[in-house]
């Protein structure tokens, strides 16, 4: 197929070629970045929290008409009530949980007077039932014992003598893998050392959707404390298949045992996850809608413009056919022409895609686009262009040679 005559013809009718090429270029730039955002967000949403989400539900409890110190007995009483509820496997009380959106964080240091901590970590208060309830696994060391759980009065610092940390945190603080049995310092300059007695495989931090939290999202520390407060958070593990019944039963029993409480919310982990990732899911969905709409609009536009163009060259096509061109020749002519335009459009579009990405990276903390996306996008645009021009090209191929002699 000779390219030169095609290019010559295009040069004579630049407008149409530029319009199609420009559309393809812009579509490529947008689709590449939109796809990238979608994949990024889906990856973000797909991160495993490390807990057995299918069996768990969480609720907040506010003790009314009691002082904070009363929770020293209120918490064990409520835990016993919940544990005795049919459908409940286990439960523990805590300050926060993965994907909750809020919680405590602190720095872990190797030396007592370190200015900058070695690693940032979230702090989850826990008792000896926490690991069982959450469904996380101890890869080394041991769980807390009941005797190690002590009360932490309000406005007192978290200075536990023993802690359990996640594997990722252990590797960060002790890259040689020797974390078990070692001591770290949590909190301020006068903090006593905390010995790592156990390491669990994976436990996510509460924060989702901010770049600060993302940096340490698998660094969690369990501390053996009963936080004395008027507000408590209970994480409950239901027996298989009995979660919804357990949710109802637990609330009934708690209110029956002590009316002076408020349970502002009860959420299954599915709801917790949905709330945490609402924005990310929404972005992925919106980007998908825009991508689809964009591809449809571009395809339709190419069909429309190409049809018109074929109509303009009705006579020329007839002449070519009269001179011996086969239907296939005509078809291939238009497809090659489209390929050339698409090629130019893709070249410009690829540059635009990278440019758009760089702009997003500098202004909005996005990651760099990998060339794979540009290639995939280019392929999609190429196929799109070829499919869109197929119908007008087929119509052109059907023009009979007699059109060369007709005056209309």
């Amino acid at each position, binding site marked *: 197929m000779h390219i030169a005559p095609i290019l010559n013809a295009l040069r004579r009718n630049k*407008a149409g070629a530029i*319009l*199609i090429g*420009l*559309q393809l270029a*812009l*579509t490529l*730039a*947008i689709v590449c*970045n*939109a796809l990238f*955002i979608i994949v990024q967000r889906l990856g973000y949403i797909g991160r495993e929290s490390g807990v057995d989400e299918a069996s768990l539900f969480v609720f907040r409890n*506010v003790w*009314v*008409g009691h002082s904070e110190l009363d929770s020293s007995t209120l918490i064990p009483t409520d835990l016993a009530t919940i544990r005795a509820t049919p459908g409940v496997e286990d439960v523990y009380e805590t300050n926060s949980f993965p994907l909750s959106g809020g919680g405590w964080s602190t720095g872990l240091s190797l030396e007592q007077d370190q*200015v900058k901590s070695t690693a940032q970590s979230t702090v989850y208060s826990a008792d000896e039932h926490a690991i069982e309830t959450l469904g996380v696994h101890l890869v080394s060391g041991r769980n807390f014992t009941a005797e190690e759980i002590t009360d932490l*009065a*309000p*406005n*007192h*610092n978290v200075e536990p003598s023993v802690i359990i940390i996640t594997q990722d945190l252990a590797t960060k603080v002790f890259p040689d893998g020797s974390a078990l049995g070692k001591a770290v310092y949590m*909190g*301020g300059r*006068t*903090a006593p050392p905390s010995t790592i007695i156990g390491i669990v495989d994976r436990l996510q931090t509460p924060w989702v959707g901010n770049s600060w939290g993302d940096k340490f999202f698998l660094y969690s520390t369990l501390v053996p404390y009963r936080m004395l407060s*008027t507000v408590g958070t209970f994480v409950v593990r239901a027996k298989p298949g009995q979660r919804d019944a357990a949710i109802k039963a637990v609330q009934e029993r708690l*209110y029956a045992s002590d*009316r*002076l*409480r*408020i349970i*502002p919310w009860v959420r299954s982990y599915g709801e917790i996850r949905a709330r945490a990732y*609402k*924005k990310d899911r*929404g*972005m992925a969905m*919106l*980007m998908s809608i*825009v991508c689809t*709409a*964009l591809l449809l*609009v*571009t395809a*339709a*536009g190419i069909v*429309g*413009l190409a*049809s*018109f*163009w074929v*109509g*303009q060259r009705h006579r020329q096509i007839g002449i070519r056919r009269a001179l011996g061109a086969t239907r296939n020749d005509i078809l291939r002519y238009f497809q090659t022409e489209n390929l050339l335009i698409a090629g130019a459009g893709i070249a410009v579009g690829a540059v635009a895609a990278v440019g*758009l990405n760089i702009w*997003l990276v500098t*202004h*909005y*903390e*996005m990651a760099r686009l990998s060339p794979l996306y540009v290639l995939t996008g280019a392929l999609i645009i190429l196929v799109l262009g070829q499919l869109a021009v197929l119908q007008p090209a087929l119509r052109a191929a059907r023009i009979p040679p007699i059109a060369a002699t007709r*005056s*209309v």
Partner: protein
Amino acid sequence: MDSSLNLYYVQLAIRSLRRNPFLTALMVLAIGLGIGASMTTYAAFRAVGSDPIPWKSHQLYMPQFDAWGPTGRSADGEPPDAWDYDDAMNVLKLHAAKHQSPISPIGFSVIPEDASQKPSAVEGHAVGSEFFGMVDAPFRDGTGWSAADDETRAPVVVIGAKLNEKLFGKASGVGKTINLGGEAFRIVGVLKDWNPQPRYFDLANTDGFGDPEDVFVPFNWVIDKQLRSHGNNNCNEASPPGWDGWLHSTCVWMSVLVELPAAADVDTFRRAVDGYAADQQTSGRLKWAPNNRLRDVPQWLEHMHVVPDEVRVLMLIAFSFLAVCLVNVVGLMLAKFLKRAPEIGVRRALGASKLEIYKQFLIEAAVVGLAGGVLGLLLTLIGQRGVLDLFDVQSDQLKHIDISVVAITLGVSLIVTVLAGFYPTVRAASVRPAWQLKSN
């Protein structure tokens, strides 16, 4: 003569659009989708980034105090977003601003008198007496409390419209008492439905959007009763144990709002806070030079990143999509106009000037733009709710159809389509009549 000709052009446009419904539908769809996407994201951007108190936002300031020094600063050298208690109280005592208030989020359990009813929770803020005047809080009944009430730590409360309706129905709760967390509070004021979006006076603890507040109580009372804030608490070093240890530490948790009407007031206040910081440095309590900030509400909203990046990215992508749709429409209009080359040739041969051809086709573009605008408007109204719900914004403006949104959408659609129609129109007008009239 002119207006009837223009009307004729409109008729011609409609007739031509009807003659090729597929192409017309394509153009209207392209414009509609592009406009819909752009206007939806723009409306979301406006709602999230709107000035919550435009008549006063340049007089209200959120100062920041550097209580942590160089080791506690973020990479950009900014001091913390919240204040610690001692420094806030000391600066407030200077009375260097026309009006001022401490602010901190607080919550209570409401114990109903009826023993068969369950207790419920209310959320709100602990503020100073001057707060209500500063934020122009609209009262349905009653007023805020007085400065004397601040001093005497009187248990008074201003409640929100929703709580009032829940407790007292249509009647006003002013003068009645409400049991908050075991203490009887006297209701001195009931607010109208008030929920500034974003909640600019407490961005240190929320992202600015959420349900309206139930209660406002005196800040001094809350401190006296040793009730911790329901918001964030950030400490750069461990505080001594106990309430007083925490209260007098450098843990930051509260906000300060000041009103500084004139530029001179701004200078006075800034110098007062910097002077206080310099005193602290001299006395050795704080070991660094003053590093304070004083931002008015719009600057504060910007600094606290109230507009999520996602909204901006969405807007960028949507407007790029509109650009593609417009290029698309240029092509389609080019096709449509040039197909009628014979008709144009006849008109020109019969004496129509180029200007008339311009008018005819620009009016046709305008008709397409209007139709696309209507479609875009429908899509915007649907899409707006979805996108704003995504970012948890409750905008009162959305409850009724905003005339300005309608006007802007149709206006933008009209303008961009006419602009897109310029090149095709130029091509159409340069059709040579003689060529079109030949039998070819």
